[in-house]
């Protein structure tokens, strides 16, 4: 199933009221680790009744990790996908834990052919367990591995080609990597497998000590919005989701950001 082009906002307890009041939002997304499939929050059932697609978005599978995937995490994602009648599940091109240590956050996989094989095997294993297709997100990174052999675009192209996974293109993560690592945005977009884009993320961030941080806690800035515009100029209209995890602001602020995103999606049509 493909989502219709349009806008959405990530479901949080703080945004539930806004989503409930906006039936024009074409989809939403829940943080998978925060929802118990045996007892999902009541507003999610209301959204399902309304027909709003909900995407379980995982952050803890550690698909890029060297160790085997945790069966309990996979089962949780699978159960949530079924309860939410989700069209697909999304996760990250990242690792989270290794050797008994857990970062609690997403860290980059070395872009080597060897690490790519491990990632592909893990994604294929996850795909065999999940009842719906898997969509994978590019992450923002504060450092790059020195042994990188492939560009991000090359790495993602092979990953999506060999696994059949879709792409959750995070425009703000891409903006962060352009700012922090000097990536050439046009060169990236020229070579990236944009035909695999299932949906798009965008969020606000801030600069600290010369590095851009994709915080999901600041107003949506012009930089990520400009990257979104350049992505959609090439892909055409896509479903675009606003992420906000803290400092939610008032309804007016969130509505203004959604309107700005809707305008960009509209221009891509």
């Amino acid at each position, binding site marked *: 199933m493909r989502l219709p082009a349009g806008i959405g906002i990530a479901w949080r307890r703080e945004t539930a*009221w806004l989503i409930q009041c906006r039936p024009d939002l074409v989809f939403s997304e829940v943080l998978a680790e925060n929802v118990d499939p045996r007892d999902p929050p009541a507003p999610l059932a209301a959204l399902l009744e309304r027909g709003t697609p909900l995407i379980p978005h995982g952050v803890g599978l550690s698909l890029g990790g060297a160790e085997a995937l945790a069966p309990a995490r996979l089962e949780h994602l699978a159960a949530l996908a079924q309860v939410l009648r989700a069209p697909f599940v999304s996760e990250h091109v990242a690792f989270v834990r290794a050797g008994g240590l857990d970062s609690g956050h997403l860290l980059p996989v070395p872009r080597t052919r060897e690490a790519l094989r491990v990632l592909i095997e893990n994604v294929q294993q996850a795909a065999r367990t999940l009842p719906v297709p898997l969509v994978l997100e590019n992450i923002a990174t504060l450092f790059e591995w*020195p042994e990188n052999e492939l560009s991000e675009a090359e790495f993602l192209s092979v990953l999506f080609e060999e696994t059949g996974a879709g792409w959750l293109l995070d425009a703000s993560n891409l903006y962060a990597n352009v700012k922090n690592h000097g990536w050439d945005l046009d060169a990236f977009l020229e070579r990236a497998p944009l035909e695999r884009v299932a949906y798009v993320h965008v969020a606000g961030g801030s600069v600290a000590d010369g590095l851009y941080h994709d915080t999901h806690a600041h107003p949506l800035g012009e930089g990520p919005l400009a990257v979104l515009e350049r992505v959609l100029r090439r892909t055409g209209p896509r479903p675009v989701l606003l992420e906000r995890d803290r400092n939610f602001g008032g309804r007016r602020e969130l509505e203004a950001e959604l309107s700005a995103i809707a305008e960009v999606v509209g221009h891509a049509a």
Partner: protein
Amino acid sequence: MPPDARARLLDRQRALLRSVLEGAAPPQGLDAERLKRVAATLHDKRVRSQCNAVRPVQRGRDSALHRWWRRVFGRGG
């Protein structure tokens, strides 16, 4: 996939985590100062995650959000 590939990757990933979580020397080829920034960011996020885990209790049940939630959905929040 040869087991060596996973073992080599595990070594690199474990070394990175030991550096940013436990203050060990950075893995070969990575900049110590940049990893300190990664460590600080991870620390912030872990603290926030812990706060989020108890947030519904800490914030109380009488906020405008919770009143709206109970009115619309009747439970939880």
